[in-house]
C-alpha cells in the first residue's frame, strides 16, 4: 500500500469527530488532496520542470515560504531521479513523505504538552494583536476542565480595551476562575497574583493571557520578558510551555514573529488559529525547520471545542486541499 493510501486509511480509521472537524475546517472549500494532486498529475503525465513549477506554486500559495519550497522541490527532484520515477502518479507519495520529513526532522510526537503530574503547570500565551490568544485560552481551559483538571486563568492583557472582560466571559463559559486586576495595571503584577492564587488553591493548570504586541516594539517585548521572569521566579521550572499564537492568514512575517518572540520568551510551541478559513498557514513548516518550534494546537472555529491537537498528516493533507484550481493562471 502506498503512503498516500495509508494516510487516507489512517484518516478514515480515526473514529471520533476529531478528524471530521479537522477535515471540515481544512476543506471548507473542499477539494481533496487526492483531487488536487490527481489534477496536477492528470495535466502532467511526465514529471518535468513544469510539473515541479506548478507544485512550487501550490506550496507558495499556502504561504509555505519560498526558501522552504525551493528546498523541498530540489529534494523531490533528486528523489525522483534516484528512484527513477517518470510517471507523475508515483511522485505524489514522495511529496507527502518529503513534507513530513522536513517538518518532523529527527523527532516525533512534537505536539505533546509539557504538563506536570500532580503539580502546577503554567502556560504562557504570547503573540501579535488579533491572532486569537484570548479565544485560544478559553478553548484550552475548557479542554483541561473536561479532562478533570482544576484550571485558572490570568488576565494579563491589561492594555487592550475589553480584553479582561473577554477573558472573563470565556472563564464563565468554561467554568473556571479568572484572576484579574484593573485595566492598565502591571501585567507582571497580575501574574504574580495569579501564581499565588493558583498555588494556594491547588490549581493544576494556570493559563496566562498577555496583551497582543507587534514583535518590533522593543518596550512591549521587554515587558513580556519581565512577565516571564516573574513566572520563573515564583514557580521553579515554570512556565512549562510558552505558546506563540499565530494567525493562519499571516504570511512571511510569521517567521519574524516566531524569531522575535522566541528570543524574548523562549517559545516552546505554536497554536495555529483560524485554520477554518481558506488560509493554510504553511509558514509553520518553515518555522519548524528554521527555529525548531513545533505546532501544538490548531484553532478551527469560535466554539469552545474548536481547538484540536496538531496532527501533521492531517495538516499536510489540508495544505493541498481547496487550493485554487487555476494554479496555472
Amino acid at each position, binding site marked *: 500500500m502506498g503512503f498516500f493510501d495509508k494516510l487516507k486509511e489512517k484518516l478514515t480509521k480515526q473514529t471520533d469527530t476529531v478528524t471530521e472537524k479537522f477535515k471540515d475546517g481544512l476543506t471548507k472549500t473542499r477539494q481533496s488532496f487526492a483531487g488536487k494532486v490527481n489534477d496536477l498529475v492528470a495535466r502532467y503525465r511526465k514529471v518535468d520542470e513544469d510539473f515541479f513549477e506548478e507544485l512550487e506554486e501550490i506550496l507558495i*500559495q499556502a504561504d509555505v515560504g*519560498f526558501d522552504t519550497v525551493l528546498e523541498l522541490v530540489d529534494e523531490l527532484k533528486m528523489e525522483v531521479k534516484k528512484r527513477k520515477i517518470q510517471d507523475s502518479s508515483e511522485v505524489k507519495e514522495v511529496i507527502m513523505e518529503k513534507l513530513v520529513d522536513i517538518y518532523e526532522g529527527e523527532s516525533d510526537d512534537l505536539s505533546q504538552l509539557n504538563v506536570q503530574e500532580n503539580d502546577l503547570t503554567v502556560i504562557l500565551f504570547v503573540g501579535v494583536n488579533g491572532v486569537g490568544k484570548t479565544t485560544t485560552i478559553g478553548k484550552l481551559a475548557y479542554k483541561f476542565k473536561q479532562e478533570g483538571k482544576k484550571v485558572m486563568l490570568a488576565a494579563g492583557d491589561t492594555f487592550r480595551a475589553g480584553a479582561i472582560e473577554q477573558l472573563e466571559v470565556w472563564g464563565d463559559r468554561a467554568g473556571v476562575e479568572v484572576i484579574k486586576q484593573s485595566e492598565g495595571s502591571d501585567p507582571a503584577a497580575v501574574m504574580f497574583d495569579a501564581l499565588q492564587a493558583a498555588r494556594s488553591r491547588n490549581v493544576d493548570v494556570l493559563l496566562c493571557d498577555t496583551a497582543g504586541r507587534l514583535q518590533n516594539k522593543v518596550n512591549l517585548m521587554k515587558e513580556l520578558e519581565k512577565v516571564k521572569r516573574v513566572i520563573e521566579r515564583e514557580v521553579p521550572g515554570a512556565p512549562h510551555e510558552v505558546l506563540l499564537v499565530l494567525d493562519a492568514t499571516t*504570511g512571511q512575517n510569521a517567521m519574524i514573529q516566531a524569531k522575535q518572540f522566541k528570543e524574548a520568551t523562549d517559545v516552546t510551541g505554536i497554536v495555529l488559529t483560524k485554520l477554518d478559513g481558506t488560509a493554510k498557514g504553511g509558514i509553520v513548516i518553515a518555522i519548524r525547520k528554521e527555529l525548531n518550534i513545533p505546532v501544538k494546537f490548531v484553532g478551527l472555529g469560535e466554539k469552545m471545542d474548536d481547538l484540536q491537537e496538531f496532527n501533521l498528516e492531517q495538516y499536510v493533507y489540508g495544505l493541498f486541499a481547496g487550493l485554487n484550481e487555476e494554479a496555472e493562471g
Partner: protein
Amino acid sequence: MAFEGLADRLQSTMQKIRGKGKVTESDVKEMMREVRLALLYADVNLKVVKSFIKKVSERAVGQEVMKSLTPGQQVIKVVKEELTELMGGEQSKIAVASKPPTVIMMVGLQGAGKTTTTGKLANLLRKKYNRKPLLVAADIYRPAAINQLQTLGKQIDMPVFSLGDKVSPVEIATKAIEQAKADHHDYVLIDTAGRLHIDENLMDELKSVKENVKPDEIFLVVDAMTGQDAVNVADSFNEQLGITGVVLTKLDGDTRGGAALSIRAVTNQPIKFIGLGEKMDALETFHPERMASRILGMGDVLTLIEKAQANVDEEKARELEKKMRTSSITLDDFLEQLSQVKNMGPLDELLKMMPGANKMKGLNNLQIDDKQIAHVEAIIKSMTKKEKEDPDIINASRRRRIAKGSGRPVQEVNRLLKQFEEMKKMMKQMTNMQKKGKKKGGFKLPFM
C-alpha cells in the same frame, strides 16, 4: 534571512551582467526572477505577481531597460512605477451622504482590527473634518466586543450606540441610524463582528445589514501581515458586499505588506487608510508610492523628508551643520537635535524609512528604544552649563553627581560622554571627507 530588498537583489544580478557590455533578453529574464522573489517575500499573491511581472517584462524588453546604461536601476524604476500605478492614487476621501447621516460599515476577518479602526476613524472624522460621529456596537458574537468599543468611545469621548448582544445586528444598525438622526450625528460607524469570508450565514447577515441601512461606505479592514490568502478574503468580501475601500492595519509592524497589492489587484477598490499603532490617532492616509517602496524594501524617503520638514527648524539645522563642520558642537546642541528628532516620531520607525538602513551593518538589528532617548536627555539636563560646553572637565565626582541628578547609573553617563566624543571625531572625519569629495554634504543626524 533572505528578506533583503529588491535593490540589493538586483545589485547582485547586475554584477553578473556587468562587463558584458550589453543587456540581453535573458538578462532581463533573470532580473525579473529577482523581482518575482522580492514580491513573493513581501507576500504579494502569486497570481498578482505573475501578471505584474508580465507587464514589467514587456516594458523592460521594450528597449527601456535594455538600452539603458544602468539597467538595474532602470528595472527598479519601471517596477516601482508599475507598482505605484497598480496601487492607485491617493484616495483618503470619505463619502458624504446627500442627506445625513453618512453610514460607514466596517467589515473583515476576526482580529484584523475593526473595532480599533472604528475608534480611530471616528477620531479622525471629528479632528480633521469636524464631524460628529456615532459609534455602533454591532459585534454581538465576540465576548466583550461591545465593551471594547464602549471603552474606546470613552477614551475619545464619543457616544457608542449599543443594544447589548441579544439583538440582531440588523436591528442594532437600523435603530442606531434613527438615533443618529434624532441626535444630529452626521456620521454613523458600524462595527461588525469579524467573520470568515466563507461563513455563509454570517456573510448573509452582513448583506442584510447592508440592505437595511444602505451604507455610503463599506470598508474592508485587513491585517497588513496577511499572506497569500489576502486575495481570497478580499475577493470574497468584495463580491458579496461590494466594498468601497480598504483599511490596512498593523503597518507599524515590520511586515512588507504585499497584501496591499494583492487586495488592490483583486478588488480594484482604493486603500484609503493605514493603521500604525494602538493609539487612537494612529490612522494615516495611504500613499501608494511609499507602499511600493516598502514592498520592495527600498525605504521611504518621502515620509522621512516630510517628517523632517514638519518638525525640524531649518535655521537651527543649518546652524548645527555649520557647527558640525567646525566640530564645535556642544552637548547642548546635541540635546537640541535630539528633541527635534524625537518630534519626528519613534526612532525605529524613522530608521525603517531610510533607504539601505536594513543593509547597513549594525543598523538592521538596531532597536532604538525611545525611553533611552529620555534617559540621554535626563543625563544632559543634569549637567551644568559649563559641563555641557566643555565635557572634558567632567571628572569622576561630576559624573557621580550627574548620575544622581538624572537617576541613571554612572556607567550610562560614561557611555554617553564616550559616544559624544566619538561622534565628534566622526564628524571631523566626515567633514574632511566632504572637503575632498565633490559634493557639499547635507545635514546628517549624528547617530544615524
